[in-house]
């Protein structure tokens, strides 16, 4: 068409393009959002094939005024909701400070989850405390909701003398077996089939614990995702596979991951796995779908794929500048709002929360982070000279240090 020199009947290569680039007006008109409360809730025993149309809907509970509507409304106490809200506030305050700390040169790298806080936090609250999580790098909310010490997160970020990971990992690549939080990998999607294996092992052992795992929209393109889906479906592994569709990989929009043609929830249909597609900024909806999937898994009915539809509010990481590839106000225009404000409005509308309480909680969160920050920085921030004893570098490669590592350790001196 646009190239007059083309032969008749010639093929053309299609390259997906996002609706808006810097300078353009944000445009979300491509998406349709079913009304809150409009999606029916199937029995956990419903067959996957019967559930395939869920891939094309969007489960929503909260409307934009804070009302909870429809069959997916979970039974969760205001007490619990307030807890969730506080975790979200804490996560956001933590992100803000640590992002800044990186800017101040206190560490090498940071990644926020701005706008996605509801996902990890509501899901963690919907899971049992001993269910095992295999996160990507944007689920710090899990640790916060499981009340892992904030200061240890900071120690890790600063690779300081009290870093539980001994300075070995890039900031935010936390690990805590105690909190059921699997060591984060820098390699996208590798954790997903590992989670399936863990879940298979739990089933093999007639345990009661299930696994949950998270990956981004962009990461679904990796072969690991396919392996995970295949094995989970074949062995009916008790696992929840969460695709956090925040619409962006680094600079590439979800169309480059296949989002132009169908939803990410639809991937599940291909494997005969139930797909749930949920408003990721709706705390109640996320909580509800997770409960449903967890119950299903625990009843030996197998895995569920959940697509959380959301928007990445911040830069990909501190190494990124999103204003170079998308309109700067795109996030603010996201029709499904901010998960914190939406849960706040819901609690307020229930009469269980007030603007004043919210402000106070926000300040408390900031103050907690600030105080913790001071504590962590007292121990140390990232420096050229590592605080870890040099010999430690050679530990944990194997259970015991083999001769060649011992020799390299000796060569290095101390």
């Amino acid at each position, binding site marked *: 068409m646009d190239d007059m020199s083309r032969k008749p009947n010639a093929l053309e290569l299609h390259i997906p393009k996002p609706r808006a680039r810097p300078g353009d007006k944000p445009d979300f008109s491509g998406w349709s959002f079913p009304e809150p409360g409009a999606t029916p809730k199937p029995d956990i025993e419903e067959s996957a094939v019967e559930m395939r149309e869920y891939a094309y809907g969007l489960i929503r509970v909260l409307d934009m005024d804070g009302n909870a509507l429809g069959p997916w409304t979970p039974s969760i106490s205001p007490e619990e909701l307030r807890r969730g809200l506080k975790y979200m506030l804490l996560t956001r305050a933590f992100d803000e400070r640590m992002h800044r700390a990186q800017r101040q040169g206190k560490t090498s790298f940071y990644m926020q989850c701005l706008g996605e806080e509801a996902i990890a936090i509501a899901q963690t609250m919907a899971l049992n405390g001993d269910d095992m999580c295999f996160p990507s790098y944007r689920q710090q909310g899990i640790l916060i909701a499981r009340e892992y010490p904030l200061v240890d997160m900071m120690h890790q970020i600063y690779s300081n003398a009290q870093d*539980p990971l001994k300075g070995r990992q890039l900031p935010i690549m936390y690990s805590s077996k105690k909190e059921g939080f699997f060591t984060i990998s820098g390699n996208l999607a590798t954790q997903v089939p590992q989670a399936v294996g863990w879940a298979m092992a739990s089933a093999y052992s007639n345990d009661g614990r299930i696994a949950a795992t998270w990956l981004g929209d962009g990461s679904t393109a990796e072969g690991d995702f396919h392996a995970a889906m295949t094995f989970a479906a074949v062995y009916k592994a008790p696992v929840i596979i969460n695709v956090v569709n925040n619409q962006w990989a680094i600079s590439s929009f979800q169309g480059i991951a296949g989002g132009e043609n169908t939803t990410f929830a639809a991937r599940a249909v291909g494997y005969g796995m139930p797909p749930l597609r949920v408003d990721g900024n709706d705390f109640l909806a996320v909580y509800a779908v997770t409960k449903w999937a967890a119950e299903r898994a625990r009843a030996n009915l197998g895995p569920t794929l959940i697509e959380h539809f959301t928007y990445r509010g911040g830069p990909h990481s501190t190494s990124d500048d999103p204003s170079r590839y998308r309109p700067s106000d795109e996030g603010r225009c996201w029709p499904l709002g901010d998960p914190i404000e939406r849960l706040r409005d819901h609690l307020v509308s229930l009469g269980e929360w007030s603007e004043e309480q919210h402000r106070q909680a926000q300040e408390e969160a900031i103050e907690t982070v600030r105080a913790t920050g001071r504590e962590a920085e007292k121990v140390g921030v990232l420096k050229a000279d590592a605080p870890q004893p040099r010999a430690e570098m050679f530990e944990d490669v*194997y259970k015991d240090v083999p001769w060649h590592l011992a020799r390299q350790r000796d060569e290095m001196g101390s």
Partner: protein
Amino acid sequence: MSPGTWRGNATRWGRNHMAQMTMIQALNSALDTMMERDPNVLTFGEDVGYFGGVFKVTEHLQQKYGAKRCFDAPISENGITATAIGMAVYGLRPVVEIQFADYMYPGYDQLVNEASRIRYRSAGDFTVPMTVRMPYGGGIRGGQTHSQSPESLFTHVAGLKTVIPSTPYDAKGLLISAIEDDDPVIFMEPKRIYNGPFDGFHDRQVSPWSKHPASEVPDGYYKIPLGKANVVKEGEALTVIAYGTMVHVALAAATEAGIDAEIIDLRTLVPIDIETIVNSVEKTGRCVIVHEATRTSGFGGELSALVQEHCFYHLEAPIERVTGYDTPYPHSQEWEYFPTPPRIIKAMRRALES
């Protein structure tokens, strides 16, 4: 050689009845022994379940232990490796089979970036006690996708151990050690000698394992420690370092040429038994390294570097490498490609005459 030589270093528990086994039977017996002893041991892979594996290493295990402990996997080496990692993280001791080493690569990322580093990156919090078995090597007319020897792609990866047995006796004892090891172990099985100790002369009668002393294998539990090499033949003239099939080919070469070679079977490539190597080369002053993998960046390069680093002042001749050529493994020219005794003899002579 004496049966004793072929069985150095084994740790034995209790009294074991001995039986004559091929390498396949010995591997099967190792799995059986461990599944019997430890409910956390399970095994899976392509065609591993009902069928018992294309080489029959897992035969009867599904019947004996049930489909949950020995089962078929989808054709995804990535999924097999990754789910095994997840199981190991849970606390099981999975033993997975990759049908041919040539097919490991789709799961290579999970080995290099994951299995090998989970202990390190979690500062010891999570560990991966898994074993990845895979038949490797040529000489079976398998062409380029059933003949590869990719061991050096594993030895380069810190955090992995790499083990290669050369006899039924070793195979069982090493596999048991691998399964009980708390780190991920790559267990490579020289498929050319699954059924008999091939000496590299394709045109001669192949003798079965039953004629070999190291086919006497205890029925029950015993271990051969990882990291310990075996001097399968003592000698004074030169040192040959080999592993897997090539141990037998090297022996045949020495016998054929009447050279008083000391032949070291590495058994474990990483961590390597440097002491045994150094002792031998310091004694002989000459060294020939033999493997079937392509030469460039093969494990022979590392061995050569180690030998010259440790024994520089004892070396009386250049270290020789006899290896597969730097080409894909051809189908028709299998015997031109394979490092046969004549090639090894030539290299030994060069080493002796330098």
